[in-house]
């Protein structure tokens, strides 16, 4: 190879001499190699070439009294090989003409620009294996554009694929393949990138070197995941073409310029700037997707469930941004393989492994430092990814002079290790381990801590006939939190909560035909919950130890879905999932009179269950259906219907500042939640301007949504079911998004109008909320506007800004006081009758890239950002306490002042 390259260089400076010898030869069913061998023998010329340039097509030809040139011209005219005969040598080159003159301007003369000369392309310039050359270079050609025809194949089955988007991004052209998998596109001379995209397949970027009209074959492989990693910059037309409604794809790379609080890049924070996703308040850990409760989102990190995806009450997301690869959020059409949550799936994938070389990136900010490194263990076979992040705030706090702050805690850390191994072409395994821990004090006398521990193991297998694929996933998650209360009193305690889940899942894929692609599988999951333990802390403490009975449950599901392409325009994605849940012993359950409110008066008996004895089973069919109709290549209409069940509930008292939310399994007295969502959407791309516009509308009806009676106590309550109410919920809204993905000015504007309401009705007035009428949920924020914009001033400098506006969230407010039974009482309004003031915030960020020198050790950039530039004192909550007969009001607000930060990011 090296020899050839060197020769090709040398030959540039040498004139070639034509051989005049005449020969007569005939070939029968000979390969090109055999032909060349014969010619070598007959002419005493040595041939120089790369074997892989030679095809296997059989040659049957007879040449009589022909010169070597004539024979070679004939033999190679249908091939992409050029030749040069020189001093008894024949040098074959693939595509390139060996120029006998230097290109113009080679010695620094003024370039003639009358007509652009076809530039010389050297073999080594593109050593990319992905590079395909098209057409033969023609010395005399002055044409600048060529027509490229192509065939798109399934890499495994070799079957042509219809409907694949072929995008030449650099020049803004695109087309789709026809029923025979063929396409045609006009490309400029030189290097071009063709992107091939189809739902259910891994997108591919094919680099082609265009010399002339020609043909290219592109093979794509089915995605292991239904939707693979998609970059913001390369999702061209995906929004139009997929049959999925309400899907958001974020890529961490695209987020690096967005201004951030305290210097942390945060993929989940960015997600909340998109319509349909919000949080109850700044610094609130839960997400509300399309009017759903914060417990209705399935957070997955490499397939393992993450119970608390946030650090520090939600200020930071729990996944190190440098370990995150991509995030897909499904807020309407949830793939049938996912279940167990009503509203959404946040599918976070850690960074793709680097099998080729050692690389890393990191950041140093005012609060945290983070680093991620990737290295191949065996090149091309196995790779390891490790990432960590930690705060240094504890060290800061301890070094402070202020006595009151010295004992405060505020710290977190997280780490991820991933191992990827390609066993052979049809088997690969991936193992991920993740751990995060938070510890902080909210009040001077209590310390909160929580941790997520995740482990996942995945084995991908492709079956022999290539039509079948499987993915076996084993995951385990543990989430726990604790409260240590240490005041100057005898009531010091330690409280802790823990949930474990272990899941085994088999995903199978069957590529039946162009029209039908099936995904199916089974999964089963075991939950173990310790709802709460309290122990006295210290010798003086008089707290009585209490432990609430453990809960256990098994959730299983079987699912199948078909991606059915009815015709070019109409695509269906129809899925069906059957899920079931069984609450398991050991344990006791209170039995209440049928049809009566659950309270101490209607308690009839207490059932006791042995270990693994079934307490109660629930189950049901979940429909997942969506369709896409292509009105034009840049305009599509989509609709979806989704049904979901949820067997696990979060007991979350939103009126408290403490993150003491606990999870509860469905049981004899607590039914699973369910939801039906209907959505439609219209998607339009304006390609010449790189603008995507979408509008989506949804209506969601929820059943058995968990809520609480007035006065409910949720922690350490042995008769919790008496405090719970299950009611109806409905949410509806319209979401509008304009996105500009490229150009110096890029970003998006999102707006949603949405409502989320609950209804808690009961026969006895004390169990009704707001007279049994619909009332706004805690997270009902009708208007939600966000603007995220990024302006690149030069290659090195860019500014970015966020502006957010939201209607204030509803609260229950005291509307007066009265004397009753000898003491003063507060009269509260109806549930959520009032709202806290509207929320708005402006952030500005400035990015400076370090110089673009190629041979630098590390590529780096500085991010300077100011969070809440306007210094708006956005109240998070307002609450009231009766302290010795006197009512006092408190409000919590977070970041009421502009917060500047500077972060140094680096990549190597």
């Amino acid at each position, binding site marked *: 190879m090296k020899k050839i390259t060197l020769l090709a260089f040398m030959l540039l400076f040498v004139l070639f001499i034509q051989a005049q010898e005449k020969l007569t030869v005939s070939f029968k069913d000979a390969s090109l190699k055999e032909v060349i061998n014969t010619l070598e023998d007959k002419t005493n010329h040595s041939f120089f070439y790369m074997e892989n340039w030679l095809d296997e097509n059989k040659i049957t030809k007879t040449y009589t009294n022909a010169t070597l040139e004539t024979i070679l011209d004939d033999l190679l005219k249908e091939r992409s090989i050029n030749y040069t005969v020189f001093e008894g040598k024949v040098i074959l080159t693939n595509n390139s003409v060996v120029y006998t003159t230097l290109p113009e301007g080679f010695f620094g003369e003024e370039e003639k620009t009358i007509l652009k000369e076809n530039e010389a392309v050297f073999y080594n310039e593109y050593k990319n294996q992905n590079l395909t050359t098209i057409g033969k270079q023609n010395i005399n050609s002055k044409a600048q554009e060529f027509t490229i025809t192509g065939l798109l194949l399934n890499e495994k089955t070799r079957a042509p694929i219809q409907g694949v988007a072929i995008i030449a991004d650099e020049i803004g052209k695109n087309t789709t393949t026809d029923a025979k998998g063929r396409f045609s596109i006009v490309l400029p001379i030189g290097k071009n990138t063709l992107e091939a995209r189809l739902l259910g397949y891994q997108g591919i970027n094919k680099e082609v070197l265009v010399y002339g009209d020609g043909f290219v074959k592109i093979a794509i492989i089915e995605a292991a995941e239904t939707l693979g990693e998609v970059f913001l910059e390369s999702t061209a037309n995906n929004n139009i073409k997929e049959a999925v409604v309400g899907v958001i794809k974020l890529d961490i790379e695209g987020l690096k310029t967005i201004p951030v609080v*305290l210097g942390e890049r945060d993929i989940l924070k960015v997600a909340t700037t998109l319509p349909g996703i919000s949080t109850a308040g700044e*610094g609130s850990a839960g997400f509300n997707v399309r009017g759903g409760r914060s417990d209705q989102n399935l957070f997955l990190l490499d397939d393992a469930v993450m119970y608390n995806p946030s650090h520090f009450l939600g*200020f930071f997301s729990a996944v190190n941004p440098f370990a995150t690869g991509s995030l897909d959020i499904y807020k309407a059409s949830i793939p049938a393989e996912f279940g167990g949550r009503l509203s959404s799936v946040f599918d976070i994938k850690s960074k793709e492994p680097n099998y080729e070389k050692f690389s890393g990136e990191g950041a140093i900010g*005012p609060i945290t430092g983070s680093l991620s490194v990737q290295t191949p263990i065996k090149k091309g076979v196995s790779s390891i990814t490790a990432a960590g992040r930690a705060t240094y*705030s504890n060290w800061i*706090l301890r070094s402070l002079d202020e006595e009151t702050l010295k004992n*405060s*805690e*505020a710290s977190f850390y997280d780490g991820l290790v991933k191992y990827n191994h390609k066993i052979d072409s049809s088997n690969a395994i991936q193992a991920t381990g993740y751990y995060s821990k938070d510890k902080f004090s*909210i*009040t001077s006398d209590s310390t909160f801590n929580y941790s997520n521990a995740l482990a996942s193991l995945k084995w991908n297998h492709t079956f022999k006939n290539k039509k079948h694929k499987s993915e076996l996933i084993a995951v385990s998650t543990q989430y726990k939190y604790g*409260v240590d209360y240490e005041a100057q009193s*005898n009531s010091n305690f330690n*409280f802790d909560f823990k949930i474990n889940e272990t899941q085994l899942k088999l995903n199978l894929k069957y590529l039946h035909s162009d029209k039908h692609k099936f995904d199916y599988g089974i999964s089963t999951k075991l939950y173990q919950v310790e709802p709460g333990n309290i122990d006295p802390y210290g010798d003086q403490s008089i707290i009585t130890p209490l432990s609430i009975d453990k809960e256990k449950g098994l959730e299983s599901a079987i699912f199948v879905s078909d991606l059915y392409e009815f015709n070019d325009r109409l695509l269906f994605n129809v899925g069906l999932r059957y899920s079931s849940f069984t609450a398991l012993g050991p344990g006791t359950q209170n039995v209440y009179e049928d049809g009566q409110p659950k309270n*101490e*008066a209607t*308690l009839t008996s207490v059932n006791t269950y042995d270990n693994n004895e079934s307490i109660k089973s629930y189950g049901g069919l979940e429909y997942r259906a969506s369709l896409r109709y292509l009105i034009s290549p840049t305009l599509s209409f989509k609709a979806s219907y989704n049904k979901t069940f949820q067997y696990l509930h979060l007991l979350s*008292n939103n*009126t*408290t500042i*403490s993150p003491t939310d606990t999870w509860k399994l469905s049981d004899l007295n607590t039914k699973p939640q369910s939801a039906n969502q209907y959505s439609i959407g219209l998607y339009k791309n304006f390609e010449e301007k790189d603008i995507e516009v979408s509008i989506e509308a949804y209506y969601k009806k929820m059943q058995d949504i968990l809520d609480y009676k*007035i*006065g*409910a*106590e*949720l922690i350490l309550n042995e008769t919790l079911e008496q405090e719970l109410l299950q009611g109806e919920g409905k949410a509806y809204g319209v979401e509008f998004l304009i996105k500009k993905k490229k150009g110096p000015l890029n970003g998006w504007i999102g707006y949603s109008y949405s409502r989320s309401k609950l209804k808690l009705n009961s026969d006895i007035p*004390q169990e009704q*909320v707001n007279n049994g009428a619909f009332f706004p949920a805690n997270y009902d924020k009708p208007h939600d506007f966000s603007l995220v914009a990024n302006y690149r001033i030069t290659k090195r400098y860019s500014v970015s800004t966020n502006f957010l506006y939201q209607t204030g969230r509803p609260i*229950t*407010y*005291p*509307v*007066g*006081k*009265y*004397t*009753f*039974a*000898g*003491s*003063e*009482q*507060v*009269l*509260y*309004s*109806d549930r959520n009758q*009032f709202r806290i003031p509207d929320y708005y915030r402006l952030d500005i960020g400035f990015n400076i890239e370090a110089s673009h020198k190629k041979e630098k050790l590390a590529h780096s950039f500085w991010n300077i950002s100011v969070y809440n530039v306007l210094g708006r004192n956005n109240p*998070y909550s307002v609450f*009231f*306490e009766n302290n*010795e*007969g006197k*009512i006092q*009001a*408190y409000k*919590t*607000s*977070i*970041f009421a002042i502009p917060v500047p930060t500077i972060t140094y990011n680096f990549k190597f």
Partner: protein
Amino acid sequence: MNGLKLTYRYLLIITLLITISCREEIELETATFESVLVVEATITNELKHQEIKISRTSVLEETDQIIENNADVTVVDNTGNSFNFSQNTEGVYISNDLFEALPNVEYTLEINTINGATYSANQQTLTPISQIDNLYAEFVNDDVKGPGVQIFVDSENNNPNTQYFRYEFEETYKIVAPHDYPVGVNFYNYEPNPSLCKPVYYDIEFFDKTQEESICYSSSRNTEIIQASSINLSQNTISRFPIRFLPEDALDDVIDTSILRDRYSIKVKQYIQNFQAYTYYKLVASLGNTESVLSQNQPGFVVGNLNSLTNNKVVGFFEVASVTEQRIFFNFNDVNIPYPRYLYECDYRELDYNDNSNGDCDGDPNDRNLLYIYVTGENYKLVNYLPATVIYSIAKEECVNCTTIGTNIQPDFWIE
């Protein structure tokens, strides 16, 4: 370098803002005030003028209760009786006639306010009758509340429907002022000397007291809702239910065992509630309680059993409850505690009227001036006077005149 340090400090403070200052007290103000009728109506099986309290909610900043005046209040039973109520001087509605709630009779309440709103409560029947078996006091060393005197209630009930109990108590204690003197003194015509170091002059007038000021009685009621339930117990028995706790030595402002110094009496009323009434009172009580670190209760509007026919919001409950009461008397030595100190610190001073020299300028205070200041400014009262030496003994008013902290009229029920 210094600048860097400052920047860093700023960042630290920001970090701390998250953890420390996320909660601040704010001015209490009523965002939207709702004037809502509040009804507290418990008709009992005692033959008496039954009472119903009707008021209105007030804004949070307000301190006084707003009484709903001139409402038309009637309790009607299903046997054709109708009982009208009229306001007494305190604004409480009192039935015009004596009556008692009878078993198996359904009662309803109707209220028409002067602004034309109409309210009614659904039918209620008398709850089962119970009794207080024992009311007693013991010295205990409570795990949470520390050492003190605990008053307990026992109630044994055979009727399975007596499951929910609400208690009220009224305690009365005798006060014997530590200093008793039949004569009082007034000072007037004070002539302050322009120079501080010169003597002062004023006139003195002695008078004989016309009222009893050394023995008084004071009463107070429970300020919290006290409830008990026997629902989780195997028997319908309330045993050693703590109704009132007097800490042995409490901080200022908290009543402690010093009210047992001279004699103490407590009357406990036990109401039997039905489940709805019990739940209502319990909820109201829980919303007023101080929150624990772990969780805060879900606040909201607590619905009672009154409805408005005119769609006005209403708070409160109408119940027909059987009531039983018991009173006990006891002294400190009955519960084996040492003689308690007096309710107040008694500052006692002897001042020489003749010490009027040099004002306060010689380092020795001018007693005559001090005497005037204590008596007229701080309300100290005479507890002894020796004409021969012109020495006045004075003490704090609450240690001399007990009518300032109680009434000198012995209650009818009082037994020595």
